[in-house]
């Protein structure tokens, strides 16, 4: 294929209009190790962006910076044209960024509806903050119906759910806060085909509403090609490839990645010579 031999496309496929999120030359080191070495990334309104790369490429670090868990060393994060900086997860959240983490934020011993409202419980007035369980049950049922998430019972403890159901509830909880940007860190890891289907359909539904822009990290290209509008590849702390899904194929992307690796390897060898 000719595309493999060419350098990176001269103009990256930036979506039209003001992007929801722009990441400009963001760097991050942990001690002497530079994990992010100048990340540039753009996320358009209602877009689903896939992020792939080897372990240690910096994907999770980037997501943790965007969600306020880590702070970048250099570079800017721009939301809807405005420079922002997050000192905490709460700060990122107040700017409309919700994250579903790899380690599943559900509480095994709490029921589905209590998990759904964790951190935003419906309470009655008074210093003791009594839970309005009836209202929470009703809202939870209606809400899960609205976004087509089905669980055996909202009374069931999260421990009793399957991995896919738990992940769906975790995504549902993040979406309930009606975020502008949703970050999904390997939402399909350790999940069977049917389970993955559940989450893929949920994310596609959300994306088609156009209200939320989504960044998905995953290792499975088939899933990403189905879910995403655009895929960015991270290699060695940089984004090396930026391709629209409908303008490329899995084969082409793989070839691009291999040639990019080769180029990096040559650079290293030349620097050493």
């Amino acid at each position: 294929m000719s595309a493999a031999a060419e350098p990176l496309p001269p103009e990256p496929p930036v979506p039209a209009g003001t992007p929801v999120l722009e990441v400009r030359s963001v760097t991050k080191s942990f001690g002497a190790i530079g994990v992010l070495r100048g990340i540039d990334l753009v996320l358009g309104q209602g877009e689903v962006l896939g992020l792939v790369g080897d372990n240690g490429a910096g994907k999770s670090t980037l997501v943790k910076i965007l969600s306020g868990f880590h702070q970048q060393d250099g570079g800017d994060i721009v939301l809807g044209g405005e420079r922002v900086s997050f000192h905490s997860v709460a700060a990122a959240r107040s700017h409309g960024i919700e994250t579903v983490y790899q380690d599943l934020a559900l509480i095994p011993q709490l029921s589905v509806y209590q998990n759904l409202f964790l951190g935003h419980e419906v309470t009655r007035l008074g210093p003791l903050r009594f839970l309005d369980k009836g209202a929470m049950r009703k809202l939870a049922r209606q809400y899960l119906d609205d976004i087509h998430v089905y669980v055996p019972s909202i009374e069931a403890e999260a421990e009793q759910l399957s991995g896919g159901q738990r992940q769906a509830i975790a995504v549902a909880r993040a979406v309930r806060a009606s975020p502008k940007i949703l970050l999904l860190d390997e939402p399909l890891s350790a999940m069977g085909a049917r389970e993955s289907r559940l989450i893929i359909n949920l994310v596609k539904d959300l994306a088609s509403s156009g209200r939320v822009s989504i960044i998905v990290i995953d290792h499975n290209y088939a899933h990403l090609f189905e879910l995403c509008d655009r895929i960015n590849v991270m290699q060695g702390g940089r984004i090396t490839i930026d391709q629209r899904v409908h303008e490329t194929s899995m084969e082409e992307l793989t070839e691009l990645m291999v040639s990019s690796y080769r180029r990096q390897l040559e650079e290293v060898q030349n620097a050493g010579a």
Partner: protein
Amino acid sequence: MPPDAATSAAVPEASPPGQQQDPLSPRNPNLSTGRRILGLFLYQRELTPVVITIGVFLYFTIRAGSNFTDSLSLSSAAGYAGPIGAIAIGEVLLLVLAEIDLSVGQVFLFCPWMMYWMHNDGLPLAVAILIALLVVCMVGAVNGLITVRLNVPSFVTTLATNFILYGLVLVESNDQQGSPIPLSGQTGFISQLMGSWKWAEILWVLAITIFLSVMLTRTRFGTRIIATGGNLVGAAEAGVPIRRVKVWAFVLCSFFAGLVGIVDSVKYGTLDPGNFGVDYILYAVGACVIGGTALTGGRGTIVGAFIGAILIGVLEDGLTLIGVSTNDFFIYVGVVIIFAMALNVQFDRLIARSRVR
């Protein structure tokens, strides 16, 4: 029944899963009697110790008859159960948080000493009580802050504060008994309420049990405790202030132990500096376990801990009455604790396995 139960029953099995019921939940209408009873015991953990306590109670009633059921004997059972219960019900909060407080037994003993000293120094009794309670709240806060800020395991933090409080009592009391305790043995309402009436202490413990139980199961703070203990990282990510929750749990646990400690001192009228809090805390943790609280975090029942304390009290009183030596009592307590814990672990496994599709 809520309206959803009716609709879920109407949904045929094969249709896309709507809001179905949890298979062993007592809310599920399509259960055989056997499974319904199993589900009841699974989800109402307090039921098992209640049944055991009633069984033990009936056994002693048959063996010892009116000697056991007379008011003197029952109040002595309540006398054993009171301090254990007071310490156990607060401890549940910490066990649910996957923490432990080994110092509450000593807090229970230390708080009346504080009251006694300050009253002897001329402070009005109400003020002395108030300050003593504030001090034990601060003990709880220090336990919590050292645990969450310095990352010292709470087992170690509270082991240390336990020794410090014990030492303070020995030093300050000069190893002399504290007596007389204000209010003790008087007939006025306040005195009766604060412990002179033989049932006062256990009723205080019962009232606090109800309060803490409602707090754990029906308030936002309770949900935060369960969330923090069930999945620390997950709770933090969901915006639960995990450190603050832990510190407050330590404070509450100390506060209620100190409060009942004062009632206990009024009841007995003297303070013995040689009493060691660890003796109490081990029974209390035993009571929590008997009641259905695991030490793994995320699960626990306050009412269960209260019943566990009652069971220990009934055992101690009943065995003495039927002429079993006090030494044997420890063997029985040990067996009950192991049995209760094994049962709990099996119940947890059953719940985890009872998932639907």
